[in-house]
């Protein structure tokens, strides 16, 4: 009998063989959510009507046909509330679907619900949701990471075989690492951002969270490709990602950058990642040291660029056209101010203020422009490194998951979670996090970084490692009652 951990290909085969129907899959996904989600709280909205979707033949014959998935609540789905886990979008019913969601529907995917996140994707723990925090299925005292914490938890908990997340500074990879699942951030421009509620437009990218690299390849295949409704979507031919999963990485040149093994990296995480690098060597890869000298400046550059873009993108939430509107406004300016003050949460306000400041007259050159120049240096570091290697590997996060409440009081400590993932967004590169072990019972993620649009090599390396390491799919102990459920 298949379940959400079985892998898309096996589930597809079970559908083809008539062992299960797609209605069975949606019903069992939803009943598992009903059973466990009062503890995990991954879902914001459960699409109960998804169990009476059309039967197999009309869903098509592709690998995703009839298979349930979950959508991060910053992606629009026509007719279903999209909140971004913010009070300010409460009640917003989009009149259209995000291109990525639309493509999954065209592939026959069955959307069973919208999942939790940090408000407007700003955060690393899903504690910034305006509704409730999501918990880590491995241990509910711990955060699932963020901002795609609901997506990662929904996959780790075995509700769905895959979910879509979005990644601006690590928001797919960091929660994937914390929850023991695979998270892929594609090259900037590979997946359309149309219908993704914008946070930092030059950094945001949609990608899959799955139980295996193969499943990530299958989902990427369905959502990748040019879309004229996103002017930053790149018109490149989409390669056959599944065909790249050969299992053979003999002669692959793997780079290791010492800048990603700073003392901030926890000893257990470091050990797991070094073991994974040994495994890559045993598979025939050659490992060489590369240097990415401007890595230490990435976080500072990011925390100017992302808030600057956010302050501009979030100017649209003013209580006029959709979402929340404050009561008793005296005039239009008062309406804007009251709506935004009552509608946005603390972290969102902090970032809007930092961004507004960085863009304001007199400070633009000192902060925003400087950050964009540093972005150039970070991009060049990678270009230089990729002249001698094919992929670069690092830890995904400096530590494993932390406890709820542990880091909420200090924004800077929270930001440090993303030191290994942020440079990749600044450079626009693809990167994937795959499980590489457990430290004190909590999952560790190995990050692999690829060249622009070289997802085939990236996925091939990640897949070969995953097969050899034998961790996937990782199941938290929630069903055996060993976890603190």
């Amino acid at each position: 009998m298949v379940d959400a951990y079985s892998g898309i290909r096996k589930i597809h085969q079970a559908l083809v063989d008539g062992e299960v129907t797609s209605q069975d899959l949606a019903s069992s996904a939803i009943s598992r959510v009903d059973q466990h989600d009062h503890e995990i709280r991954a879902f914001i909205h459960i699409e109960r009507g998804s169990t009476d979707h059309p039967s197999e033949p009309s869903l098509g014959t592709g690998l995703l046909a009839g298979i349930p998935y979950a959508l991060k609540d910053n992606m629009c789905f026509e007719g279903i509330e999209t909140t971004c886990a913010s009070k300010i979008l409460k009640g917003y019913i989009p009149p259209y679907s995000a291109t990525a969601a639309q493509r999954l529907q065209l592939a026959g995917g069955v959307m069973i619900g919208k999942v939790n996140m940090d408000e407007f994707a700003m955060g690393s723990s899903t504690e910034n949701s305006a509704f409730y925090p999501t918990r880590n299925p491995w241990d509910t005292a711990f955060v699932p990471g963020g901002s795609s914490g609901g997506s990662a938890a929904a996959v780790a908990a075995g509700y769905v075989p895959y979910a879509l997340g979005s990644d601006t500074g690590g928001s797919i990879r960091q929660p994937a690492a914390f929850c023991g699942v695979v998270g892929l951030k594609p090259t900037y421009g590979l997946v359309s951002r149309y219908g993704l509620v914008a946070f930092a437009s030059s950094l945001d990218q949609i990608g899959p969270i799955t139980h295996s690299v193969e499943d990530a390849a299958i989902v990427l295949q369905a959502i990748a490709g040019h879309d004229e409704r996103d002017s930053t979507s790149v018109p490149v031919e989409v390669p056959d990602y599944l065909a790249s999963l050969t299992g053979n990485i003999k002669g692959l040149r793997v780079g290791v950058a010492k800048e990603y093994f700073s003392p901030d990296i926890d000893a257990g995480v470091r050990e797991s990642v070094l073991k994974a690098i040994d495994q890559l060597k045993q598979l025939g890869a050659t490992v060489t040291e590369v240097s990415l000298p401007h890595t230490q400046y990435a976080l500072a550059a990011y925390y100017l660029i992302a808030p600057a873009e956010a302050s501009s993108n979030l100017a649209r939430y003013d209580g006029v056209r959709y979402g929340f509107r404050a009561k008793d406004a005296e005039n239009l300016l008062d309406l804007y101010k009251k709506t935004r003050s009552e509608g946005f949460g603390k972290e969102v306000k902090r970032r809007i203020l930092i961004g507004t400041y960085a863009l304001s007259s007199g400070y633009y050159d000192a902060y925003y422009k400087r950050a964009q120049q540093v972005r150039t240096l970070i991009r060049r570091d990678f270009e230089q490194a990729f002249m001698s290697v094919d992929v670069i590997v690092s830890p995904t996060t400096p530590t494993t998951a932390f406890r709820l409440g542990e880091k909420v009081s200090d924004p800077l400590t929270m930001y440090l979670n993303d030191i290994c993932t942020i440079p990749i967004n600044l450079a626009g590169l693809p990167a994937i996090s795959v499980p590489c072990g457990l430290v004190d019972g909590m999952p560790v993620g190995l990050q692999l970084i690829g060249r622009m649009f070289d997802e085939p090599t990236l996925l091939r390396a990640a897949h070969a490692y995953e097969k050899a390491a034998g961790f996937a799919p990782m199941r938290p102990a929630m069903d055996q009652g060993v976890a603190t459920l």
Partner: protein
Amino acid sequence: MSFRKEDVEYVASLARINVSEEEKGVLADELSRILHFAGQLQELDLSGVETTSHIGLDQTVTRRDEARPSLPSDVALANAPEQEDQQFKVPAVLEG
């Protein structure tokens, strides 16, 4: 640069956000620490380094100037907190 309460007030007014006296104090402290952290970019010599605003975007994309179907106005207005005569309704812009 450190943030004073007046700076918070000024930036908040630019961002159209109200902050209470109490919030001003907390935000002044938090924003100062974030800016101090960002201050490390000042130690780099960036003369002659071009800026990167987007990756992989060489030119602005335009579409052909052709009429296409768009949302009917009732659908576009469906999420409005208040509407009147096919328009978004807001409080008075000018007093009196």
